[in-house]
């Protein structure tokens, strides 16, 4: 119903309507379409201004310090002018990887169960629960981490408990809904012909799933993993609460670590000058990385459709 404007032919006319009314109609139409157009532009403008605003804060600083030094420097001593975020990059990489190792297979398993095996009554219960899991605020996950996960790790493995492992466990749970929902949709979108064809050849249910269904849903599943990765990567509060936040390269998964996001939220409250600029630059790096991830998953889902 996107229409060539059907009223425009008669905006000069008299018809059986007095001209005043006609003008009123034309004007209200113009106002309405302009308003909706403005709303849509606002969205585009927001994305652009987020990039520009962070860029304006970050780029001069990065130019001065040097991008390479910033990314690979191992010393983060803001008060002495050392701004190297390599330890935080490592921390982010560790906890994100840990989250994917724990949450990825579990999420995919649940997605397969929901899309291929579960009777509809179970689906009706399970789906809202998954949505609920997505709705729990990250600070509550962090709180659960502090009160349950961290003490567990301390008791079982020793050490401080606040660790890469604790953060990975919490994040692993937090990315489940994303992975389950995206992967489930990808699997459900595989046409039934594929399954029937395989079953007709004598393949068992799981041979069909591994041999036909999952390969057919491949790009959607990869997109699910990428989106889960993005979620873990960008998560802040839950990680801050359980990771211990020490700026150092962790030597084992039982040692504390600090991620890029944690660094921003921990220090932004009191940072000034170059220190503040360094934190904005950290945010800018985060943003660019997320934009790249989004492009990748966008490209993959597009590919999955065609």
């Amino acid at each position: 119903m996107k229409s060539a404007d059907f009223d425009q032919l008669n905006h000069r006319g008299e018809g059986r309507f007095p001209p005043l009314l006609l003008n009123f109609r034309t004007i209200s139409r113009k106002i309405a379409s302009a308003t909706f157009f403005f709303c849509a532009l606002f969205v585009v403008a927001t994305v652009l201004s987020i990039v520009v605003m962070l860029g304006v804060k970050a780029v001069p600083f990065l130019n001065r310090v040097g991008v390479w030094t910033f990314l690979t420097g191992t010393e983060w001593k803001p008060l002495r002018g050392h701004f190297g975020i390599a330890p935080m990059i490592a921390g982010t990489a560790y906890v994100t990887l840990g989250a994917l190792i724990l949450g990825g297979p579990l999420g995919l398993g649940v997605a397969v169960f929901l899309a291929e095996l579960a009777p509809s009554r179970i689906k009706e219960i399970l789906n809202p629960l998954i949505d609920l899991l997505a709705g729990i605020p990250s600070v509550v996950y962090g709180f659960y981490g502090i009160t349950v996960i961290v003490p567990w790790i301390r008791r079982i493995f020793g050490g401080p408990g606040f660790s890469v492992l604790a953060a990975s466990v919490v994040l692993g749970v937090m990315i489940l809904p994303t992975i389950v929902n995206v992967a489930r949709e990808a699997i459900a979108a595989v046409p039934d012909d594929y399954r029937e064809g395989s079953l007709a050849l004598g393949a068992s249910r799981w041979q069909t799933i591994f041999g036909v269904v999952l390969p057919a849903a491949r790009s959607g599943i990869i997109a699910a993993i990428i989106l889960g990765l993005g979620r873990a990567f960008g998560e802040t509060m839950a990680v801050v609460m359980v990771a211990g936040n020490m700026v150092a390269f962790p030597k084992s998964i039982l040692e504390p670590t600090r991620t890029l996001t944690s660094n921003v939220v921990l220090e932004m409250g009191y940072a000034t000058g170059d220190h503040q600029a360094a934190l904005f630059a950290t945010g800018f790096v985060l943003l660019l990385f997320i934009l790249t991830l989004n492009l990748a998953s966008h490209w993959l889902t597009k590919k999955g459709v065609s």
Partner: protein
Amino acid sequence: MSEEKIKIEVRNLNLFYGTFQALRDISLQIPEKRITAIIGPSGCGKSSFLRTLNRLHDLIPGAVVKGEVILDGRNIYTDSVDVVELRKRVGMVFQRPCAFPMSVYDNVAYGPRLHGVRRKRQLDEIVEKSLKMANLWEEVKDRLHERAQNLSGGQQQRLVIARVLAVNPEVILMDEPASALDPISTARLEELIIELKKNYTIVIVTHNLQQAARVSDYTAFLLNGELVEVGRTQEIFVNPKDKRTEDYITGRFG
């Protein structure tokens, strides 16, 4: 047709969807307070033709109309015609019954409210009158405030007709109005259509030849976007002039 008063005169009408020409040089006259049926195999342009009569093609990007449609002496395809006013005068009933997702009452009051009727008493009157004219009042008078989508298909189609009647049109266009209905609902609808003829000019598209024969006074036969033949229904069915009309009516193709 010379003895009839002409309500709509179509002159050299052509319709294009982009580069595809859906109607070719159609000229015909639609007499007032009569039922004119448009028949033809599917895809021949029946719906397209009907939609030129209330300028519904204005909504489709790329659709271009050339030629004249003269309603009461005035070409509706000129700048000075108010499309809203035109559509009030030329109402339309579509193939699938489409009750709006609101109450029965609000469905019928939808048009009058659009056109500025606000007073409750007046709306009540219009709703009752329209539902009565559509032979639906007795069935729904106690459920006016229930959701219209709970009505049966046949009731919904009559509701749509009541909704059209409520804006007080002069011409009613119907695009295969019975194609989604069961035989009993179809019979009731045909009865209603014949009754409406007293006050309204009706143009009905149908792929059901018996239906055209039963209800219409005049019949036009379209084929591949061209008007093959038009005339009194009896003559078209009993004594068609064109070989293609005869073939179609005797079921030899289409």
